[in-house]
């Protein structure tokens, strides 16, 4: 069990990490790099709280051996948070009370980011389907769905077709 070095791009910056084989991306982010926005709700791939974007695709960081992201681009919630203020998706979640305990929130926001890049104007059914791998025990989802719609408005203006 020799440690090895894995290199990838994290939030736009190159990183090299020394890891034991098959360490999950989740553990590398949370324990090694101390980027804890990516949560650890189940480590079974079933709650969505650890969702990150790999080359723009939402993936469960708990199921991803770090070696698999060698040379890839990983984006976490830390990577979309601007220096000052909030990203429009973050603003929408904040303003719409789409946040209660906050534990599922990072995963929800990352899926929203990937969704709105593909579909600038998703309808409600599309939003719910996109978020179907992300569980929230507190909010009952309505505020989250509203926040995603609102985020689309903030990103793309609210004059377009809905």
């Amino acid at each position, binding site marked *: 069990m020799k440690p090895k070095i894995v290199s990838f791009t994290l939030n736009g910056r190159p990183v090299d990490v020394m890891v034991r084989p098959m360490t999950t991306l989740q553990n590398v982010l949370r324990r090694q790099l101390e980027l804890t926005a990516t949560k650890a709700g189940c*480590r079974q791939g079933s709650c969505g709280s650890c969702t990150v974007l790999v080359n723009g695709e939402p*993936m469960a960081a708990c199921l991803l051996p770090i070696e698999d992201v060698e040379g890839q681009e990983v984006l976490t919630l830390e990577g979309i948070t601007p220096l000052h203020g909030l990203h429009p998706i973050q603003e929408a979640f904040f303003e719409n009370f789409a946040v209660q305990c906050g534990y599922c929130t990072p995963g929800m926001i990352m899926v929203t980011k990937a969704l709105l890049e593909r579909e600038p104007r998703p309808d409600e059914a599309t939003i719910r389907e996109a978020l179907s791998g992300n569980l929230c025990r507190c909010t009952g989802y309505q505020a989250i769905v509203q926040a995603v719609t609102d985020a689309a408005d903030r990103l793309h203006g609210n004059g377009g077709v809905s």
Partner: protein
Amino acid sequence: MSVQNYYLPESLGEALELLARYGPDLLVIAGGTVAMPLINEGVSTPVQVMGLRRTGLDEMARSNGNVKIGATTTLTRLLEESPVPLLRTAARNTAAWTIRNMGTVGGNLFSPPPAGDVAVALLALDAEVTLTGSGGERVVPLARFWTGFMTNVMQADELVTAITLPVPTGKTAYIKYGRKQAHTPAVVTVAAHLVVEGGRVQQARLALGAVGPHPLRCPQAEAVLTGSELSEDAITEAAQTAAGECDPFTDAIASEWYRRKMVPVYVARALRQIAQEEAAS
């Protein structure tokens, strides 16, 4: 003992060499969606692991009336790019976006029931599995791939490299009945492919998931349908026959009793979908 080596071969040849070296001691993963939760919990403690993400086995191609799907094609690509609507529906009904971005078509053959929703559709489409080993390739009909719960006909040195199916000529239906709308295990999954000509069923293929040790074909129910009109009577008889051909189990989602009850209901619903589509065309 923790994982000693995690190999990510860059080609099929490299992967086969590793397999030849370690044999059954090498855990093969693709998307990791089945194996990783068990490893995270400490339930599974593999020492040598091989990941297939970089092997380039993710080609999806159509030729000579066949669709060939590379084993590591993700379920998202199947959903977005498959030329076969039934497979797109099956992919859409499997897990959730995040997991579909990781899970693969080949891996779905190894998902223990009640998972394996895409495999059910492949079975109804008469898919064949290409197994590649040190001795070369062989092709096995998917219907003969599984031998029991989590067992199959593969040799220790073989990998599933592709799944090939004829482009469906008939009409298809797919229903997954789970307790939630999405991201949930199946109570029962039904996939059907029927060729109807002149008002009669010329060819019938019916596959069930989550009601046996692996996805099942229903030859007797298929026989009931073949040659008959797709009438309500025939549908009911086929549905009842299918109930006798499954081997359901009890888990946290549903009991054996309930699963057996749901087989004829959902087989009939799937067949009625086709009948309605047939009537409309």
